[in-house]
């Protein structure tokens, strides 16, 4: 067991650190989401891309550094150490870009990946819908092919981060309702300035809007907008979700949810550091964050050995959210009512109840782990083998 850098990795770290030290003065503030702040973050992503730090694991032919997950972690750590923001378009570069690399046509890769990397074109992910989140294959957005090969899209998407800034979205839509629900889906590239697209911010408990609703009203897509084969969208989507797990798994501490940071917050009142109940609660929370850090190293070891991240990663997400909820709660108990308005900890309290459902609800993640890791039998399902078009009637009949 060895967490030290090999000589090669130490040299890479030194290069990354030197680049960041040289350019740190150009870095913008990580906070704020007004137009000026977003423009500054996009410009900073361009600088990171020029330094080879934006798409560490993308192949070199598409502008990446062509390196592995270890180097990605080094970059994450060094960006954290330098106290500068990372890339702006984590969803694009971390999840959607790798999906295009795996399933897109050569034309799509040549046209789309370069501007994604430099944040000249920001991306958003159009998967979830008001009636399909954890059961993603139940989406209703329809894509109908026209005689000339173009597509007409109608439907509604939700929880869309960065939709208001995005040039493109990667969208899952139903192309064949007359087959079981996982089989009639196709992935598309959607230009967000197309006629018929509406974006509306969705405000959350904190008052901020980290997400949007996206309305698609008879939007026309040109022929060849599909990513991968028609009706093979589920497999393409699973690739995105796999990269989502890797991005979260390797970047969790990047949110600043760390045992040491919460310990510093406790120092606000010295009496708290001597209060046995506070210490007990904090000891338990800190232990979960420490477990996450070292679970991350175990996952990284697997990745490095070429193993595909499994469903166990879902448990890390469950632990992260539970520990962050408990930490926000504890720190606000210590700070008192003012804590709830604190920019760092109050937002934690407000945001966590919603994040519990992001990337699959805690309940659906536990189902997934129970079935795929422990091999437990699935819940009986009403939708197996049923054409999507007949499903609603069957669901209603079962009530």
């Amino acid at each position, binding site marked *: *067991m060895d967490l030290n850098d090999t000589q090669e990795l130490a040299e890479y770290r030194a290069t990354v650190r030197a680049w960041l030290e040289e350019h740190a003065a150009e870095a913008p503030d990580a906070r704020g989401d007004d137009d000026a702040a977003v423009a500054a973050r996009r410009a900073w992503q361009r600088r990171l891309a020029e330094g080879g730090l934006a798409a560490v694991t993308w192949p070199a032919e598409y502008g990446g550094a062509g390196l592995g997950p270890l180097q990605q972690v080094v970059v994450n750590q060094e960006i954290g150490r330098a106290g500068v923001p990372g890339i702006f378009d984590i969803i694009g570069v971390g999840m959607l870009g790798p999906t295009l690399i795996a399933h897109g046509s050569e034309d799509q890769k040549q046209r789309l990946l370069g501007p994604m990397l430099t944040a000249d074109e920001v991306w958003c992910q159009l998967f979830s819908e008001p009636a399909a989140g954890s059961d993603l294959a139940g989406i209703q957005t329809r894509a109908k092919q026209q005689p000339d090969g173009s597509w007409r899209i109608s439907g509604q998407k939700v929880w869309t981060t960065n939709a208001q800034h995005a040039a493109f979205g990667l969208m899952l839509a139903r192309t064949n309702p007359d087959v079981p629900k996982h089989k009639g889906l196709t992935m598309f590239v959607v230009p967000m300035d197309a006629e018929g697209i509406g974006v509306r911010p969705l405000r959350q408990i904190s008052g901020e809007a980290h997400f949007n609703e996206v309305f698609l009203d008879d939007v026309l897509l040109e022929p060849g907008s599909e990513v991968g084969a028609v009706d093979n969208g589920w497999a393409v989507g699973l690739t995105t979700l796999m990269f989502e797990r890797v991005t979260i798994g390797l970047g969790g501490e990047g949110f600043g949810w760390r045992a040491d940071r919460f310990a510093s917050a406790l120092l606000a009142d010295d009496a708290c550091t001597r209060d046995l109940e506070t*210490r007990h609660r*904090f000891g338990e929370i800190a232990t979960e964050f420490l477990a996450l850090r070292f679970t991350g190293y175990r996952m990284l070891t697997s990745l*490095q050995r070429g193993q595909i991240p499994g469903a166990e990663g879902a448990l890390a997400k469950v632990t992260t959210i539970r520990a962050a909820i408990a930490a926000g709660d504890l720190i606000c108990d210590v700070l008192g009512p003012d804590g709830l308005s604190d920019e760092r900890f109050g937002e934690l309290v407000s945001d966590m109840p919603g994040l519990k459902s992001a990337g699959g609800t805690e309940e659906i993640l*536990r189902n997934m782990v129970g079935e795929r890791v422990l*091999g437990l039998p699935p819940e009986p399902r009403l939708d197996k083998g049923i054409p999507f078009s007949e499903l609603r009637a069957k669901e209603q009949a079962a009530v």
Partner: protein
Amino acid sequence: MNFALSDEQEFLKEAARGALSRVATVEAAREALDGGALPDLWPTAVEAGWPGLLVSDAHGGAELGALEAMLVFEELGRVLASVPLLGHLPATALLDGDDRVAPLAAGDTRAAFVPAKPPTDLDPAWTTEPPLGLTRAPAPAFADGTVTGRVAWVPDAPGADAFVVVLDDGRAAYVESAAVEPATVYDVTRSLGHVTFDAAPATLLDTTPADAAAAWYLAQTLIGAEAVGAIDVALATSVAYAKERHTFGRAIGSYQAVKHELVEILRGLDNARSLMYYAGWAAADRPDEFPLAASAFRLAAGKAFDHAARAQISVHGGIGATWEHDAPLYFRRAQLHRRLLGGTAGAADRVAGELITAARAA
């Protein structure tokens, strides 16, 4: 970077599992509740080289690390094996380098570590478990070549040939004879004693308070590793039952309420295992982080074990709470586990104290 077990470490685990599989330890544990004798596993331990696992090569040991010791304890914990190594290994770690360690490393004689909890940011004293209640007693004192003091709940004290005693100033002493009152224990596979030193002749060891603290944390990791093995068994047993037991026409493991409870055992196990590796890595590579790592591991493992032992009973229904099933044996062990060696609550306080101290210094 590599955060997985090496081939040698995997082999050590397999060998331990193989050696222990020759004895029906779980059945023996059940019979011992009715007064049956536990099998003597010391010869098995000696044959495998476990008594000298942590002792340097020059003094007749295998010179392996804390992680290897934890891997052996994980296997012991799986099958509730009663082997007096929880007392022995920390004693040998403190005594390594001393000529008297050789017979202990060979397993010809057996030592008990008489632990004292190192000072915290709130309490400057070295303290020991009280026989009753929460008020911790001061550790034994050394004067004029003798040790005097009483320490309750000392692992593996009954039958020990020698005692390595942590003193009230963080030094350590070697004592050959003490009055040991065997403690009646809820988990009969766990040998415990209340030890009294009444001006017992003693020699001081050439150790620092940091060494004595490291022995305390080593004991935390060993008892934690036992829990990891036990959780693994509780999970596998419960999952197997949830697949075969049917109610209302379906396997109970298909119900979310049952499934989610089983996944919660896995989550606790996975977190504890990650922290076990952290503790093993820190013991070897980051000694200054060992108090934090060992305490976090002890806490995670103890909490997860308590939950797993209860969940195993729930999943099995009423039968899980009877002597017909193994679940009560694991439950008894979990209940004693969380109250020994400072307890899981003490470990939580230590995690907080270490991090608060670090935050103050930052």
